[in-house]
């Protein structure tokens, strides 16, 4: 009894450390300490759990911890910053499957069934299963092992609905007949895994940021359900925190794309090819690296607008070098970050931080838009849809209403682009035809390097 009391007291301390750790994450200055405090909270919770009197065998726990720790540490060290979304997706999946297994093992060992335990067990297994297989599909899509395009077929929504209803019916039987529920539980696990695959597969690669945010939330909810099933407060608290965090991020992402969650999940966005009927006035004006240099050299203020293309071209470091040269030249240089620039919430900030760009220079969209008309030059690198004025001007466009970085209002815009190909949304960009726009064609990294060498040769 005394040990149980101690365990629960430590759990309270851990919960405080998790919450305080998240609170410190509100500023880049304190964030690292916050993460450390949160990790200490986790360590304490795990260690004190080992002291539980119920535990009879430590060997297999040690085996699991060592193997899991090695795999986790290996991933964490080797992963490229551009691969963060894949890794988070995969880890979400691991959290989900762990909750499923805990639910299953608890049922297997259960002597005393009651309605509450059975209901929460069912939820932990169902949500854990969906999180696992959904995350694996998201991981496959993000790492381009399976097609990033939406996979759609006739009657998809109806099939998903049917599977969901079957799972719920199985669940009610499972809850009502705990003693003979074993085959039903296996059925529920299979259905949940199937459902996870089917709900993620119709979602396009560009919408993956929303999906991994949502799966993040699910992994929390699954942990929370498992916590309710085994009456463990620390699981309930942490699961709820993660669930809330995932939902907030999902919401942020949806707003940044001007889409509802329903539209993301069932819309199959990007599957239909838009007819390129719209023609724009004006002509495309190409520019050479040399002329780009003259424009940048004369600029007092420059804003760099990066998109995921910057990471694809591995141009972050070259861009930072150019920014340094511009600053030496006396210009004020900042980076405008769109919320969906990158493959997950806040991804672009991490990519630029890796290239040693100080975080004060990374400005959020609303803030830069207020003063963008006074900016001498905007340099758009590897971004397309997030600077498309159609979001503001063309009510018939599929991205109409999406918040954008309004680079077209700056004095001059230089767009670095490989070709005139459209972005994820599959629509043409009227920005390229504007009077104040110049196109610097070619690979982003070599283009920037060419401009940098112009600076250096002077």
């Amino acid at each position: 009894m005394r040990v149980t009391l101690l365990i629960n007291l430590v759990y309270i301390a851990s919960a405080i450390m998790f919450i305080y750790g998240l609170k410190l994450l509100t500023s880049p200055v304190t964030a690292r300490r916050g993460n450390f405090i949160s990790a200490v909270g986790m360590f304490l919770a795990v260690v004190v759990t080992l002291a539980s009197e119920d535990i009879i065998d430590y060997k297999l726990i040690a085996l699991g911890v060592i193997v899991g720790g090695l795999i986790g540490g290996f991933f964490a060290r080797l992963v490229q910053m551009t691969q963060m979304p894949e890794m988070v997706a995969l880890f979400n999946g691991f959290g989900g499957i762990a909750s499923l297994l805990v639910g299953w093992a608890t049922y297997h060992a259960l002597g005393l069934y009651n309605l509450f335990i059975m209901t929460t067990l069912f939820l932990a297994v169902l949500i854990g299963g969906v999180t696992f297989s959904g995350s694996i599909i998201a991981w496959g899509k993000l790492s381009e092992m399976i097609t990033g395009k939406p996979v759609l077929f006739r009657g998809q929504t109806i099939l998903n609905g049917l599977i969901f209803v079957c799972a719920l019916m199985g669940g009610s039987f499972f809850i009502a007949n705990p003693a003979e529920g074993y085959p039903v539980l296996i059925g529920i696990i299979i259905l949940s895994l199937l459902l996870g695959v089917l709900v993620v597969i119709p979602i396009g690669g560009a919408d993956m940021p929303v999906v991994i945010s949502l799966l993040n939330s699910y992994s929390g909810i699954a942990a929370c359900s498992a916590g309710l099933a085994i009456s463990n407060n620390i699981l309930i608290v942490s699961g709820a925190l993660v669930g809330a965090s995932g939902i907030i991020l999902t919401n942020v992402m949806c707003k940044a794309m001007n889409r509802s969650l329903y539209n993301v999940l069932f819309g199959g966005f990007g599957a239909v090819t838009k007819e390129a009927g719209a023609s724009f006035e004006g002509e495309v004006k190409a520019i050479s690296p040399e002329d780009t240099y003259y424009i940048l050299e004369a600029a007092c203020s420059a804003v760099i607008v990066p998109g995921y293309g910057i990471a694809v071209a591995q141009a972050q470091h070259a861009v930072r070098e150019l920014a340094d040269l511009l600053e030496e030249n006396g210009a004020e240089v900042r980076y405008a970050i769109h919320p969906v620039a990158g493959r997950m919430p806040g991804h672009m900030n991490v990519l630029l931080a890796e290239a040693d760009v100080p975080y004060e220079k990374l400005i959020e969209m609303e803030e830069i838009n207020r003063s963008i008309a006074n900016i001498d030059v905007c340099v758009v690198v590897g971004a397309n849809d997030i600077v498309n004025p159609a979001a503001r001007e063309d009510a018939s466009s599929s991205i109409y209403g999406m918040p954008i970085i309004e680079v077209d209002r700056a004095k001059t815009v230089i767009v670095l682009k490989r070709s005139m190909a459209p972005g994820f949304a599959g629509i043409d960009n009227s920005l390229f035809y504007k009077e104040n726009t110049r196109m610097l064609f070619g690979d982003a990294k070599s283009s920037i390097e060419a401009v940098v060498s112009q600076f250096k040769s002077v």
Partner: protein
Amino acid sequence: MNPDECRAACLICMGLVLVLSIFVGFEVISKVPARLHTPLMSGSNAISGITLVGAIIAAGTAEGILSIILGTLAVTFATVNVVGGYMVTDRMLKMFKPKKDEGKVCE
């Protein structure tokens, strides 16, 4: 209290914990700035690895081969989540550096 009353009290307690945690979560996390959303996600991902605690109990109390396999697998997956999540978050946050000096200003 008889066992039934005890159980009811326990449920209400857990419900209270759940509801309050959700509120605290929304309150704290909505204040995290957009620039830290990726570390927030990998960090909260690590926190969701708290299932490890449940997995340890399941693995440590397991009797019979299936229970042991399920529990040990759960411990392994949850540990990947915890260790990997915290380490990669730390790696990212280490890169966030403040500005060193003020540059020249354009006339």
